[in-house]
Every structure is written in C-alpha cells, then in structure tokens.
C-alpha cells in the first residue's frame, strides 16, 4: 500500500521533471548536441554535396589536413590575429579600466561611450571599418591626403600586408568596452583600505597598480584572456563581411575556411574534420591557459 503511494509519488515527480526539463533537453539535444555528434560522424566520410550519400573513409580527412597548405596558412593567420587580440584585450583594456576607474566626473557616460560599439551589429562595425579603409573615399586616406601624405595612402583592406591589422583593429574596437567592463567590475571589489594604506606609505600610481591592482585583477585576467582566445580562434563573420578571405587566400581564418569548404564548396565531410581539429585545439589551449594562470594566482 505504502509502496504504491510511493510509486505514484515518484511517478508524478518524474512527470513534473519531464514537463520542466523536457522542452529544453529536446531542443538543445536535438539541434545543438545532435548536430555536433553528427558533425563528428561526417568528418569520417567523404560527404560532398547535400544530396550525395556520405561514404565512410576512416581518418583520411584528418590525414589530408596535414598536407593541406591552405589549412596551415589559415592556422598561421588565425594565430596571428588571436595573439594580437588576446594581448590587446588582456592588457589594453586593463589599462583603460584602471584609468576609467580613477575618473571623478562623468564616469558613466565615458564608460558608455567606450562600450557603445559592442552593442552594434558586427555587420555595422565591419561596414564602418570597411568604409574607413576604402582607397578612394575612405576616411583614413582622406585624412592622409589632407596633411599631404599622399604617398602613404593604401587600399587598407585590399593590401595583403595591411588587411590583417585592419581586421584586428575592427575586432579590438568592437570588444574593447566589453573587456574593460569586466575589469572595472573587478576593480570595484578591491577594498579601499588597500588604497589608503598605499597612500600612507607614499606609493605612486604605478606601484599601486603593480602591487595592488594588478594582483587583484588576475582572476579577471584569466577570464578575459580565455574569452579573447575564443574570440580570436573563432574569428569568422568579420571576414565574411570585409575581405572574404582575400586578397587571394591571405586572410582566411579557420572559421572562414570551414564556411568556405562546407557551405560554399560542398566539401562537408572535410569541413567537419577541420572544425573538429580546431575545436579540440581550442579546448586544449584554453585548458593549458587556465591551468597556468590559476597557478600564478595561487602563488601571489
């Protein structure tokens, strides 16, 4: 009798769980997890084209990756961008946060100005940068011509030696406010007694930064550097809007290469292999990064 009551109780409980969790599990499982698993399965096939039947070819795609010059080119370019992005977002936004934190007046509005590009669409930001970089009518060249530096004019997005830096600047501009805000939130948790003690001891702003702020900001530094790493490795929509990988194949990021293979060129099997290798690399790099930075946090 009691057992039966218990059974109906757990039955109702399970039903409630199903109602509460079911929709989320179904959607997320069916349209995020399942495609991710299928993607791995596809990476073991020579699937080309939406209607073609994929054929199992084992690890051949992964073997091909080793000798794929375009892939290694894309890795090199992505890593260059990632290094620039990570350095910029971890250190420049930290500096900016320290400066903004000292402001007495108009703290909110100024902070708001720096955050503003982050709320705009990537497409808007990319268009603005593309406009500024334009050879004929771009703002950068107009300014250069105005001060008589006609020779310095460049097709900034079209020239292979400048395009990477323009793309980096685009990403940096869009995200600076976001990363600065993460640091600012952390700076506000530093107890004021520390600053007072430093002032009594006669510490200048530089040593305050080095001895107090920097060590206290290390937890956020871990977060920002990992987030910046993810931003860098997954760099992709910005390329689609601005250079589309050009000139030639000089600004292919890994993300754009996957899109190029899988969506534009019907090499879905191979594209899946590329995306899995990249994802695995990202997880490993981020893991090492977190481990290293955590160790440093403890030792301080």
């Amino acid at each position, binding site marked *: 009798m009691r057992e039966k009551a218990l059974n109906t109780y757990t039955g109702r409980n399970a039903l409630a769980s199903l109602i509460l969790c079911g929709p989320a599990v179904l959607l997320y499982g069916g349209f995020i997890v399942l495609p991710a698993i299928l993607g791995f399965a596809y990476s073991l096939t020579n699937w080309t084209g939406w209607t073609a039947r994929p054929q199992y070819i084992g690890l051949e795609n992964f073997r091909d990756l080793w000798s794929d010059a375009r892939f290694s080119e894309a890795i090199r370019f992505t890593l260059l961008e990632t290094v620039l992005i990570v350095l910029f977002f971890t250190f420049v936004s930290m500096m900016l946060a320290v400066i903004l934190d000292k402001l007495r007046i108009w703290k909110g509005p100024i902070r708001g100005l720096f955050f503003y590009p982050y*709320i*705009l669409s990537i497409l808007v930001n990319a268009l*603005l940068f593309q406009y500024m970089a334009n050879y004929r009518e771009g703002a950068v060249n107009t300014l250069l011509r105005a001060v008589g530096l006609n020779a310095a004019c460049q097709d900034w997005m079209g020239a292979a030696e400048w395009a990477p830096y323009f793309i980096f600047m685009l990403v940096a501009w869009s995200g600076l406010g976001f990363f600065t805000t993460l640091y600012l939130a952390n700076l506000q948790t530093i107890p004021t007694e520390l600053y007072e003690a430093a002032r009594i001891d006669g510490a200048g702003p530089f040593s305050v930064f080095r001895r107090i702020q920097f060590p206290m900001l290390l937890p956020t530094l871990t977060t920002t550097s990992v987030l910046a790493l993810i931003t860098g490795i*997954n760099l992709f929509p910005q390329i689609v809007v601005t250079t589309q990988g050009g000139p030639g194949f000089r600004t292919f990021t890994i993300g754009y290469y996957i899109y190029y293979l899988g969506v534009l060129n019907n090499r879905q099997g191979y594209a899946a292999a590329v995306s899995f290798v990249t994802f695995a690399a990202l997880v490993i790099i981020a893991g090492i990064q977190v481990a290293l930075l955590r160790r440093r946090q403890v030792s301080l």
Partner: protein
Amino acid sequence: MLTAGILFISPCLLAVLNAFKTLPEIIQSPLAVPKHPTLDNFIYLFTGVKLARPMANSFMMCIAVILSLIATAPMAAFSVMRRPMATGKFLQLFFLAGLTIPFQIIMVPLLQQFRLMGIQFTYFALLVHYVSWGLPLCIFIYSGFMSSIPKELEEAAAIDGCGPVSTFWRIIFPLLTPCTVTVVIFWGLWIWNDFMQAFIIMGPRSQLVFVQLWRFMSDKYVKNWNHIFAGVVVLSLPVTILYLSMQRRFIKGLTAGAIK
C-alpha cells in the same frame, strides 16, 4: 578622457554625418558636416529597398525567440538545480557543455538536419536554431541566480499542496525577474544584430534586417555609401535609443554571462 571617448566612437558619428549627404558629397568631403542635409537616403531605404518589412520581421523574430527561451530555460534551470532528480548532475554538465560548442561545428550537419525535416530555409528552422542556441547560456544565467532564492519558499508551497510546475510559475519565476530582464536584453540585441547565422540557416531568402542590409551592400561592385550609411543609422537607432535610456542595465546584462 571624454574627448578620447568621443574620438573612440567617431566612426559612428561619421556614419551619422554621411547618412545625410549625397554620394558625390561623401566622396568629395567625407569628414565635413553636410552642406545641404538631405533625407533622400532614408526615403530610398523605405521605398527602394523596402526595409520596413524586414524590420518588422526581425522584431517579431526577437519576440518569438525571447518568449520561447523564457518558456523553457528557467524551468529547466529550476528543475536541474532545485529538484531531486537522478539525472540532475548529469543535465547540469550536459547544458554547460553547450557553452563551448562553436557555431562552425554544428553549421553543416544542422543544415542537413533541417533539410531532412523538410523545413530548410524557413523562419521556423531559424527560430528553432536561435532558441536551441540560446538555451545553454540562459540556463547558465538562471542557474547562477537560482541559488539566491531561499529553499523554504518551495517547501512551503509543497506543504500547501502546490505541484512542482505551478510552484515554479507562481512562486519562483516572479523572483527571477532580474534574470529575465538580462535574458531579454541579451538575446533581443543578439538576434536583432545577427546576420551570419540567419544567412547560413535561412539563406538569402531570410527577410531579416541585417541579412537584407548585407545583401544590398554586397550586391554591387561600386558601393552606394550614402544608402549604406542611412541603413546603418536606421538599423542601429532602436538599439541606440534603448542603450541610452538604460545603459547600466545593458552593460550589466551583456556582461552577465562572462562574470559568473
């Protein structure tokens, strides 16, 4: 510092200035204040490009996604965090894993999946994708907030004979309002601004604002900057107004996922 801040957003100001110029004037003097401000560019957007429909579509899409997320994510977070479930711990990790999956990995198989379901290139497919894509982060944000709600409330409700589902909607959900605001801001903005995923999932058929703007601007070899700038200004205006009216909420909402 204020000057630095204004200089920082000068590209945006430039776009606003140039949106009121004719194309020859933009090319001749891109940095100057417009001599004869004109509204032609904006008029063209609504008569030539017909941007009003896509704007309405995007707005509807935002609402649909946000409502679906609010209907599913907080319930799941509640169930996983608060109820005795055999699979609770597993589900927590299961949803957390979603935060790490990049779009590039699921892109190609997802398209195939929608094809097999017969809903490829439809708004419904895009809606399904947006909601599933948003779920892990929403559940993450709600789960973090859930721990600040006292357990006694649920116990009291249970004693009064209130079932788990109605306990959630009547008692817990109203307390999660700050979280819900965050979710609305974050995903509303994200979906309004998105063009990449919409373009890949739905193709050029998707009548959403930024996809249309992108198609329109990549159409021609010579760029009509005057129309592009007008488009940029019009599409960023709703976001900018909301941002100006509740800046603190915005900044808090957009960084919520990262700080926790």
